[in-house]
């Protein structure tokens, strides 16, 4: 067992990479084999993740490294923070895979889709496990490359345009990140991520360069995290199939950016250097602005997925904001929101996809009375929406609570104002939808109804994932104080991050 331990990180990546590569070579008609491979990959990955979780919880270091660049090996490292992201993406991958199999039933080019889908998750997990900046950069770019075919998958003029824009933003961001990483590498090589950062000795001598590096890194990561001026790709990328949107928004892309910001702030620069460099406040302002802007724009969208997209822009910046506050409580809020937002947003996207796939509904105004036709889906949607607003006992409440506490802790009272305002806006764009679903009568016939199941409201593969994630949203909220909740895990991480001295 212990002999396996150092190889766990690479095994976790390979468990989705290898099935992905095999799936590429499959014929369109080999559906069974493809499904089987997908499921095998997920299961194996979950087993490996569980093993790693046990090890990390027991305080063991799990590191795998390959020689790569001089001064920067390819390091895969399992610590508490990376595990948080790994677990999130593995579990949500399971849900999304099932969902995608149901969603794409009968559509062409599925081998290509599932191949890239697996590559995408491999890249995300690799990114989570990256042990230094160079490795992170590598997986960050691979993630761009793996998600691009998914965004463009439908092959319509609209998705081509969206994919071009997506590439323009993300490759640009990738280049900025690369420049920043190279700058830091020139200054100190690329050591492993260390709690508390490794740049403190340089703050006095290379202040300006470090500030520049911070700006470059945040700009590069901000593209994926959809920070304010760099968010333009996200609403357009909505043309992708629903499982892709779900994955992009909840797990892979935006979270990769947010996760990167966490890593850069805590494990590369460290709280102390950030404070001395005076770079946290601009980031905080930017994040706050993005939160309000995203919510405000979401209000005006009539397309369900577009509204969810702007909501994502807003919600992901909670994570950034929590990181930028530099206080332990805010950090807990940020980390736990990373998980909670992922689960809630994926629920919402699954539901939106169900509406579109079963009844052909894309517009909010067509949702009238859908609660009667699709009660389970609508229930999941409602729970997700309530979570987004931050109503107890959902998971969203927990994270917002901690973020508010964090703001008070670092004496940034105005941020609480931001949270309240954003919460109100969230309510303003989610509650009317919920109202329409449950409390209004159907006026028009469904745009494009399909009979996907005899007994259930829709195909079971489409129905079970949102129910599963809905359950998670509730459980994470209700059992937040138990040992295995994301909250206590986040507290563990923060304890390790902030107690380095």
């Amino acid at each position, binding site marked *: 067992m212990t002999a396996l331990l150092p190889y766990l990180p690479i095994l976790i990546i390979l468990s989705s990479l290898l099935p992905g590569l095999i799936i*590429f070579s499959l014929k369109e008609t080999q559906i069974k084999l493809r499904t089987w491979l997908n499921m095998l990959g997920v299961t194996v990955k979950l087993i490996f993740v569980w093993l790693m979780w046990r090890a990390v919880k027991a305080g063991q270091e799990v590191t795998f490294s*390959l*020689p*790569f*660049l*001089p001064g920067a090996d*390819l390091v895969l490292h399992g610590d508490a923070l990376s595990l948080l992201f790994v677990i999130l993406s593995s579990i949500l991958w399971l849900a999304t895979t099932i969902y995608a199999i149901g969603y794409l039933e009968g559509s062409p*080019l599925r081998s*290509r889709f599932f191949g890239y889908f697996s590559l995408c998750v491999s890249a995300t997990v690799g990114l989570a496990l990256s042990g230094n900046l*160079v490795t992170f*950069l*590598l997986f960050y*770019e*691979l993630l761009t*490359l793996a998600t691009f*075919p998914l965004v*463009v*998958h*439908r*092959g*319509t*003029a609209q998705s*081509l345009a969206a*994919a*071009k824009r997506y*590439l*323009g933003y993300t*490759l*640009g961001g*990738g*280049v*900025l990140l*690369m*420049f920043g990483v*190279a*700058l830091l*590498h*020139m200054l100190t090589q690329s050591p492993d991520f260390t709690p508390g950062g490794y740049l403190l000795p340089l703050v006095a001598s290379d202040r300006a360069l470090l500030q520049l590096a911070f700006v470059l890194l945040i700009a590069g990561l901000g593209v994926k995290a959809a920070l304010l001026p760099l968010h333009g790709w996200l609403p357009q990328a909505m043309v992708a199939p629903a499982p892709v949107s779900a994955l992009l928004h909840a797990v892979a892309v935006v979270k990769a950016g947010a996760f990167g910001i966490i890593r850069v702030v805590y494990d590369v620069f460290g709280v102390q250097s950030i404070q001395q460099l005076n770079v946290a406040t601009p980031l905080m302002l930017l994040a706050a602005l993005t939160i309000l802007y995203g919510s405000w724009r979401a209000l005006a969208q009539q397309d369900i997925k577009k509204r969810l997209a702007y909501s994502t822009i807003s919600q992901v910046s909670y994570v950034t904001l929590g990181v930028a506050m530099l206080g332990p409580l805010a950090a807990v809020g940020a980390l736990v929101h990373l998980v909670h937002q992922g689960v809630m947003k994926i629920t919402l996207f699954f539901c939106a996809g169900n509406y579109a796939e079963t009844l052909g509904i894309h517009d909010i105004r067509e949702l009238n009375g859908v609660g009667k036709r699709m009660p389970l889906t609508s229930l999941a949607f409602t729970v997700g929406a309530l979570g987004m607003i931050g109503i107890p006992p959902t998971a969203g409440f927990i994270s917002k609570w901690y973020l508010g506490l964090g703001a008070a802790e670092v004496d940034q009272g105005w941020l609480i104002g931001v949270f309240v305002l954003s919460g109100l806006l969230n309510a303003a764009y989610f509650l009317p939808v919920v109202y329409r679903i449950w409390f209004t009568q159907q006026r028009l016939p469904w745009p494009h109804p399909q009979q996907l199941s005899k007994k259930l409201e829709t195909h079971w593969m489409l129905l079970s994932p949102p129910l599963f994630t809905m359950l998670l949203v509730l459980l994470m909220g209700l059992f937040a104080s138990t040992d295995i909740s994301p909250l206590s895990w986040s507290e563990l991480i923060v304890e390790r991050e902030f107690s380095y001295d």
Partner: protein
Amino acid sequence: MSLALGLVIIPLLAALLMLLWPRLARGLQLAAALLCTILATMLLQLVQQEGSQQLFIGGWNPLLAIRWQADSVTALLLLLSAVLHLLVSGYALAVQQRDKLAAAFWPLSSLLLASLQALWLSRDLFNLYVCLELLGMVAVALVTLSGDKAMRPALHYLLFSLFASLCYLLGVALLYGAYGALDLPLLQGQLQANSLTAAALVLITLGLMLKAAWWPLHLWLPAAHAAAPAPVSALLSALVVKGPLFILVLVWTTLAPAAFLNVAAYAFLVCALGALLLAGVAALRTPYSKTLVAYSTVAQLGYAMLALALMLSFNLPVFTAALWLFVMAHALAKAACFLSIGEMQQTLGVKKVAQLKGASQTMPLAMFAFAVAGGSLIGLPPSGGFLAKWVMLLGLWQAQQYFLLLVLLVATLVSAAYIFRVVVLAFDRAEPTAPDFSPQLLPQWLALLPALAVWAMAFFSMPLLAILQQELS
């Protein structure tokens, strides 16, 4: 040194035998390519263990004889050309019947390898002239394999190439007139900074820049490279333009007096900027897919120029490493690009970029090869192109060249734009161009091989850099 000799003589003899017995051509080609690859690997090991090797041909005094030298860079280049020759030969074998590849391809490509290997090894100014001329003639002869449509580009290429060789020869003649020697190591440090030397160096540089298609002297390249058959374009873009580049680096790093270095660096810098930005934009605008790849060659050579300029103005070893890394990464990636584009052109029967629509459905492997190779051209990790760019970035940060960093940023985005211009189109599902015949798998895989090789390069960065560092110490 007998290894190096084998590297030149084996393809040469193979070519002669192919001409005598055309029936044996394919077998001989493959055998020679394999043998050369093995020998080149052995030579690289030898050089790593025992340091650089020298040979005075005929055993005469250094003043009289032609000198061969196999240092680590040379050994790497020898290996690179042998490997690429092998890969391209494999592809050519796979498609020869379908594409009606002329029988002359085999001896000519073998001669190309022989002349390249002779060029890498030579350290004699006049012998380099003969090698250059040889290389130019083989290249033109290979371009003509495409038949009628290639004749005019081929003739233009030949005229440019001849003019360039004459410029080079004139420069060499002036140097000989002034210093009475042709051997590079002997001339090292001898040159004085006067107008005669300046004129000689300018002429040599001009000739070599023309041959290497350095912006703004690249005008012959896109037409010639686009007109040739795919395996030939691959060889031309990957290897042939690197020959003059190699000589240029040799001349400027060993010969040029220190007083000239700054001026030259500025000149190269301007050319590099022009290449990176303007040629990149040209690649973005051309309607033809092969021309796009050819312009990308011009643009990518800009990185090599930039590295050379930086090498001359800053005494940082990273730039030397960056230069050769760029050369190698570009060679592999460009070969893959040309082979995959050629494969798609043949199968789909199209020439324009816009007609590659939907290629990721009809020919996924070839498109994948193009994208993967393109990733290296852009500099995405973990590819050879990334490695080169990374090394250069470190150097630029170290030298605090913020303007150049900005240029590099823009150039990277431009290259990403022209690569993804093709890749995005390939995902278009509306009315994809239907293949003329069912796509063949083997050639597509063979086109993918160099692309995979360039991505593998990043994982050998430590040994590669070690080899390149050995050169500097």
